[in-house]
């Protein structure tokens, strides 16, 4: 089976350059009793952008939702294996998923601002978590860092849902970074946006990686090649029940992934022969 674990190679490469934030040790995801994602071994380097690419149904979003235990909210999904976040296995029953999600923020595929004011969209999370600092400053700072402050500073009381799609997504990013997280998970954050908004979000990601570790699922290979430092390619295969399941095929530095991928599957996908 041309099933490629990049584990050993990355161990040396990633650790030379960066600390490891997430160490995925054989994580599998079952959906409705069927294996939907084959054992994944992967190390996510700190303060880098890691992109997950691959065709639909390859498990890239499913794996992303493992990093903040969002799969817990999907009744039919079950996760097995160990996933270390800075040396702690987050699938240890003793780990509190609420505390984990404060550290590991998420931006979703469709912008989902709360139907409240722009200010409240940012302030809700910190307030619910007992933030003691100056809320006005935090709101302004978060909106500035998400490159949306100039567009909304005069209408902080307007509803977040009244903004345009691209603005809503940047509001959601501001909302996530207001929690001062360690990691940002982004699940196809630009798929509902036009090219201009997409560019804004991409530039934002490049700025944010100075402070945060970013893991981004994307359908857009150009996007991965533009902004990611590391790229993981996932693919699908048919199991013995005739069901489709996902697997990690290759994990490489982005330059290498797009110039000389080590696996044939990745090469075919990237050269556009399928997918």
């Amino acid at each position, binding site marked *: 089976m041309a099933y490629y674990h990049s584990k050993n190679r990355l161990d040396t490469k990633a650790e030379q350059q960066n600390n490891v934030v997430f160490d995925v040790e054989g994580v599998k995801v079952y959906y409705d009793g069927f294996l939907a994602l084959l054992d994944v071994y992967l190390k996510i380097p700190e303060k880098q952008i890691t992109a997950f690419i691959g065709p639909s149904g390859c498990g890239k979003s499913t794996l992303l939702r493992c990093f903040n235990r969002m799969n817990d909210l999907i009744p039919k999904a079950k996760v097995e294996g160990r996933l270390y976040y800075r040396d702690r296995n987050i699938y240890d029953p003793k780990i509190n998923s609420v505390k984990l999600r404060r550290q590991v923020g998420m931006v979703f595929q469709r912008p989902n601002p709360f139907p409240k004011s722009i200010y409240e969209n940012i302030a809700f999370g910190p307030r*619910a978590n007992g933030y003691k600092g100056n809320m006005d400053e935090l709101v302004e700072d978060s909106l500035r860092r998400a490159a949306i402050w100039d567009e909304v500073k005069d209408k902080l009381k307007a509803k977040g849902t009244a903004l345009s799609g691209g603005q809503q997504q940047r509001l959601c990013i501001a909302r996530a970074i207001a929690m001062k997280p360690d990691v940002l998970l982004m699940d196809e954050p630009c798929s509902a946006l036009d090219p201009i908004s997409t560019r804004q979000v991409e530039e934002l990601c490049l700025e944010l990686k100075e402070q945060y570790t970013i893991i981004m699922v994307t359908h857009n290979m150009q996007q991965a090649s533009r902004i990611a430092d590391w790229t993981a390619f996932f693919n699908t295969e048919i199991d013995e029940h005739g069901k489709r399941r996902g697997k990690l095929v290759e994990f490489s530095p982005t330059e290498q992934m797009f110039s000389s991928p080590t696996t044939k599957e990745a090469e075919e996908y990237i050269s556009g022969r399928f997918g």
Partner: protein
Amino acid sequence: MTTIEQRDNYPKSAAEFTENVEKREKIGKVFEILFLLGLLLGLFVLALLLFDVLRDGLGRFLMPGFLTETPSRFPDRGGIRPAIVSSILLGIIVILTTVPIGVGAALYLEEYAPKTWWTAIIEINISNLAGVPSIVYGLLGLGVFNYLLGFGPTLISGALTLSLLSLPVIIVTAREAIRAVPDSLRYASYGLGVTKWQTISHHVIPYAVPGILTGVIISVSRAIGDAASLIVVGAVAFLTFNPGLFNRFMALPIQIYSYITRPEPGFANAAAATIIVLIILVLALNGMAIYIRQRFYY
């Protein structure tokens, strides 16, 4: 003049379709008119009812003392104050008891309970309870509140019986409203490291409030207008004092019923006048709900 059909370059594939657009649009028009007729018929009946009630009752309604005095043996004298006070008290108690219990039950079923066969059975049964005739609730109230809890035929027994009557509708509509809250909103909240209860209290409930209010209004209006269950529990037709929680009580529908069973013609007008009061009460309740819905920030 050539029509499209006569042109030479008209695509050949057109021959494979009998488009018949005019006929299809005509069918659509027929249905549109049918639906309009349905609406007009409903409005007409309602207007007729209102007109009839106002014609019979407005004169009596406007007589001094109708709202403020106690009932009299004579159709043109006295008023319906005890019935008004009773109905308002009944409505308040029904709202105070059913809203927390009903919304709580709906929240548990939607947000906490696992989706298993036994929650499915509970769901079906609650929906069925919404269709049970009110007199059956009256018998239940008689057994539980009058005898078992020993309240006797008092206002509190009547109010709690009406609460039972209202609960299923409130639970069913509150569940619909809670289910209509998009999951993306819950995920957004959980993704910030927010607990389940914070998510429910800050996002799910506010988002569902308009839908919940609609259910509350429907079911409380039904309760306020219900006579059968209160007759069983022991509402009286004649009271010369304002009811208290643990006193004998009346209600507007009971008052109407008692008026129309009397032979003298003047009582029919008094009944119509009481109906006007009942309609105003229900309208006021609806107005309150609309006001709350508009004011609600979410």
